[in-house]
């Protein structure tokens, strides 16, 4: 069984550019969440999507946006990149029925470097 897959694995962008990161959840999972992990720290919650609707948003600026497609895959978009956006971006998927907690499984992440 394929786990959570993210693409690309590595990315280098210049300040001011925009970037799109992609995530495919585990088959059957309808919830996708995005996290940012800066070196040396724990991941920080950015967004959660369930059944194509935004269900949660962390403390990130409006430059960050996301969406979920009918096949439950998801994209994270970041505009006007700053040096501080350099981080490992992690995607997690879960069954997330909305009424009970289920295990969240993470992908390998996309390493974004902004120069």
């Amino acid at each position, binding site marked *: 069984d394929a786990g*959570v897959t*993210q693409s690309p694995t590595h990315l280098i962008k210049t300040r001011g550019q925009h970037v799109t990161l992609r995530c495919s959840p585990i088959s059957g999972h309808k*919830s996708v*969440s995005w*996290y940012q992990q800066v070196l*040396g*720290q*724990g*991941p*920080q*919650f950015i967004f*959660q999507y*369930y059944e194509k609707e935004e*269900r*949660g948003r*962390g403390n990130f600026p409006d430059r960050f946006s996301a969406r979920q497609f009918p096949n439950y895959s998801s994209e994270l978009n970041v505009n006007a990149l700053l040096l501080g956006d350099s981080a*490992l971006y*992690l995607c*997690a998927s*879960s069954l*997330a*029925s*909305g*009424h*009970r*907690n289920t*295990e*969240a*499984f*993470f*992908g*390998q*992440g996309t*390493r974004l470097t902004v120069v």
Partner: protein
Amino acid sequence: SQELEQSPQSLIVQEGKNLTINCTSSKTLYGLYWYKQKYGEGLIFLMMLQKGGEEKSHEKITAKLDEKKQQSSLHITASQPSHAGIYLCGAEYLQGAQKLVFGQGTRLTINP
């Protein structure tokens, strides 16, 4: 996050020794997740605890959630080089929210 504190921040143990990592929350947990991360890679799911007093084991790793649901411990018995990595606890404070608040991680080194 100050909501969730892990200790110690780093740990060096000799192969074969037991060790414990703690995760303390400033408020009542709905759920507590433990993950392992190799440097720069994704998180590997270890265990999820929800009920006060719950204890789960997988191979040589045991995790417990205390009765008051504000602290969890991860215990590794007879540590091996394969246990080396960063251990992260993630807290869920709302039922079904799927928003995890993570500790800063514990870096575990196993010396031969």
